[in-house]
């Protein structure tokens, strides 16, 4: 549409930059960029709860006259206006990872995991490990966070199917940093020790990388790692290591690499006037220790991030 010389430039704006999850997206986006011959600009706020900063980033990328934006909105509502704005200015937007409320007519495509399904899988797997009975806690991430909110919702609603499972705590939030998640986790563990110091919880679910990591650290510190069924979310190297050591029993794993790749590719397709799907599911699977070394999982779990980010 736009006649400009040189390759297209596409901005990829994540919610944050510090988690391994975003690094995979980054790598995927770069791979797409190289294969399709477009420039990929990677800019992001540092904290996942800084909505204001992300809005500014989107606005500034529009000012920067990039050709398209690939955005993982940190809030389903707050980012709506800047996205509309961008589209109004002729910069198409592809949403990844987490949705944008009531604006399907605005963005080009939504490329993400089915988070509700991710939560449901976690619930079913944890229930299976506990043979359908026991006490469970869930640690949330942030207030008003769309993608993890869906996981939380899916998890809790799927557990309705198991009458003998009791959810003893689902009201605590890990907060934006790993340290805050860890502190919240520690105090949760403390809360569910009985008079003899025995831990009274049978299963734990954490909704993303930082809460899973915080909980893992807390379990280690309390010497409880491996003694309670623990399902986390996302596949950071540190979490996979812990799973090898039986400290984590299972992880719900998305495919961030694919998400980054498809995000950019969809944007380029859209710019080139191709028909793109409005909703692209990047898949979510549950893995256990046994899956880590399977050859078919290698590309999925250990995408060659280094190669793309150099």
């Amino acid at each position: 549409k736009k006649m400009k010389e040189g390759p297209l430039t596409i901005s990829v704006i994540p919610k944050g930059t510090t988690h391994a999850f975003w690094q995979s997206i980054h790598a995927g986006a770069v791979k797409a960029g190289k294969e399709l011959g477009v420039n990929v600009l990677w800019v992001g706020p540092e904290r996942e709860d800084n909505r204001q900063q992300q809005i500014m980033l989107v606005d500034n990328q529009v000012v920067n006259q990039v050709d398209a934006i690939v955005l993982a909105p940190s809030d389903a509502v707050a980012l709506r206006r800047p996205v509309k704005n961008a589209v109004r200015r002729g910069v198409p937007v592809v949403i990844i990872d987490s949705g944008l409320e009531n604006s399907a007519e605005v963005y080009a495509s939504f490329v993400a995991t089915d988070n509700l399904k991710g939560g449901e899988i976690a619930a079913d797997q944890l229930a299976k490990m506990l043979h359908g009975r026991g006490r469970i806690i869930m640690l949330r991430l942030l207030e008003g966070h769309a993608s993890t909110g869906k996981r939380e919702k899916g998890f809790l609603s799927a557990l309705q199917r198991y009458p003998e499972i009791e959810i003893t705590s689902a009201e605590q939030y890990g907060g934006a940093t790993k340290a805050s998640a860890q502190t919240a986790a520690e105090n949760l563990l403390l809360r569910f020790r009985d008079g003899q110091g025995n831990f009274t919880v049978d299963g734990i679910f954490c909704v993303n990388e930082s809460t899973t990591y915080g909980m893992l650290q807390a379990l280690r510190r309390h010497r409880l790692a491996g003694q309670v069924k623990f399902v986390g979310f996302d596949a950071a190297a540190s979490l996979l290591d812990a799973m090898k050591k039986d400290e984590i029993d299972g992880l719900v794993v998305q495919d961030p690499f694919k998400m980054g790749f498809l995000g950019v590719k969809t944007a380029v397709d859209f710019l080139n006037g191709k028909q793109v799907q409005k909703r692209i599911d990047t898949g979510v699977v549950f893995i256990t220790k046994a899956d880590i070394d399977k050859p078919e999982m290698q590309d999925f779990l250990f995408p060659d991030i280094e190669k793309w980010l150099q």
Partner: protein
Amino acid sequence: MKNWNWLNKFGPLLALLLVYLFFAAFNSKMTTLPAMEAMILQTVIVAISAIGMTLVIISGGIDLSAGSIIAFGSVVVALCIVTFNLPPVVAAFCGVFAGMLCGFLNGFLITRIKLVPFIVTLGSLLLVRGLAKGFAGSMPVNAGETWLSELLATLPAGQKWQLIPPGAWLMIFLAVLVAGLLRYTKIGRHIFAIGSNEQTARLCGVAVERAKLIVYSVAGAFSGLAGLMLMSYQEQGDPTGAVGLELDVIAAVVIGGGSLSGGEGSIFGSLIGAMIMTVIRTGCQLNGWAPWVTQIVTGIVIVMAVTVDRLRHRNNHQ
């Protein structure tokens, strides 16, 4: 002597120009109209809060609770619209009023119990943030689209004659108003006198307690208004937003020539200070530099601004 006086007045403006030209040299996008508009938009929230902070700093105090009050204000406005179904303009006033109440609380503790502003506002930083989260149930409150959203939106094609969005006009109007009051009214002189020497002010019949109460309440009201702008910017009341923004606000005032020991500062300077920080951030982002570069540059600019200020003063006094 003359030259220094000149620098005294236009130092911050000169600094703004320098920073701007520096980034413009890197990236021609900086000089486009949309870039200018975006930069003004992104300055409004900090700048409005900085108007109030300037008063506080001139009076010799400090307000660490500004960021929390901004969040609180945004939540109150959103709740008024969503939960109480009030018309947007009433909701807006409620937000400003809520900010004023917080400021009044600060002022009350500072003047009645005679506590140091740093501590009082450190306490209310936590307290007001807690209230904001409590009111909002720890979740952003989506206000939906009202005309409030237009305060800080890019102007639609048909209204380009307005040059900048209404929120920015409001900021300019208020800045001129407060600067005028500060320079040409009794209470304005009194605020300077209090910051310069509180005991002297008292001796001269200045109602010091009353003036401080006013200063902190007005500062609270301005932060509340900044909260309204935040809510317009995000279309939601954000109880976890604006964390640490008080430091940006204080930095803006200081870069603009305010002195933390009181008696010095200017509204005009503070706006320029806020602009400088936006230019740095936008400039770095347009060049695709990482956020950490922005932070390093801003840190260095703050220290340099104050160093230049010191040298200027040293020269003025000789």
